[in-house]
């Protein structure tokens, strides 16, 4: 949202950063496994829990790092810890 990217450009940007195709972004199983492996956060349900998955803040750290974008809550957390910006 902060970059104001149009959808086609945004999909290509994200796909390139994740090493997949824009079509892969539409595939739930592919993205579920990818997000799990990259520790970017995913949904869970009663019989498929992921206790070792990252917390939302950790997930956003990975998202910011992998995509090379600035995420406000991540920057705020870093400031609180005295690291980063």
């Amino acid at each position, binding site marked *: 949202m*902060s970059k104001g990217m149009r*959808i086609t450009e945004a999909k290509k940007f994200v796909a390139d950063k994740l090493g997949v195709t824009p079509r892969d972004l539409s595939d739930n199983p592919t993205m579920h496994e990818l997000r799990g492996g990259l520790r970017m956060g995913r949904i869970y349900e009663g019989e498929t829990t992921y206790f070792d998955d990252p917390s939302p803040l950790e997930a956003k750290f990975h998202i910011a790092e992998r995509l090379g974008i600035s*995420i406000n809550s991540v920057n705020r957390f870093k400031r609180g810890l005295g690291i980063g910006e």
Partner: protein
Amino acid sequence: MEAQVPTRMGDGSLVELTRSQIRADLEAGTEAAAKRGKVEPLAQDELDHLLDIFASAARFTSVDIGDEVILSEDGTGHPQEGGRIEALYQHEQIICQDSVEAYHMDYSYPAVKTLVPVEQAAMKEAQERLTIPVHYGAQPDLGRYSKPSGPCDNWSELLPQMKIDEARAAQEEAIEMAIEDMVFVAESLWEAGADGINFDTAGAAGDADFLATLRAVETLRKRNPEMGMMVGMASETVLGMHGQLEYRGTRLAGLKPKGQMQVVQQAGATIYGPAINVNTGKTVAWNSARVLTYVKPCMDEAQIPVHLNVGMGVGGVPMYGFAPVDAVSRCSKAAVDILRLDGL
């Protein structure tokens, strides 16, 4: 005898029309927008595609795989979902939304400014509980600055008395107050970790309301280069309650979606959300064709994402509190397929 298919009116009621009748409605809807908005009507192949969508008897429809767009939302959460943060989390985990918006029930920047610390605490917690973007939103709500709610003279009362100069002066006074409040709230929630700020129903109180929003966005952009800002409109035409207000040389009164988008871009917003109101006496097909005709001129010129408002009473969706999913899904698919939108 031509078969009839179920479809909806703009008030949500179920009716049955033939394919030919739906086609006639599509053509009438686009012509209505072309005439009033002084824009081109939809092309025949576009109307053909819309006919396939609206003449379907399917309960639900959607875009093709690969054509998915981003869903942004105003005011996420319902009472049945428990607390505010739990509601946001459910929308991430169970409804699987792309983004959510934390909000206060009194969805108004002048109201929220008195509750900022509470909203900041909620945003902080939300950012720790959710992975998807959490925005914060409210309405500019310029009318609240007029008496008896606010300190400014009430221009809605002054105008019928033909006190035009006084009405304009009151709106100009309210604009400055509104900008201050919007900037204060937005920066406070940004400081708390918000991923973006939404100015919803911009222009609801007319051109002064819209100008206040644009100037607030401009100020925030200068002071916060990374802030994401969405400006969602209130209607397809900005009402000239003042009549003489301009933003960077553009008269705001009477602006239609393309003109609205241009000034929103100039101000520095990162998402523009047009809102085209529904005629409850017409079918969803008629309304959808009208919506798409109005918004289509925006798309080639847009340099920021365009998220059409597709909800209760706008974007072709029936004006009904619990909009039927058959209508919502058709209007959504129609908008994405024809306009190549960035989001809804």
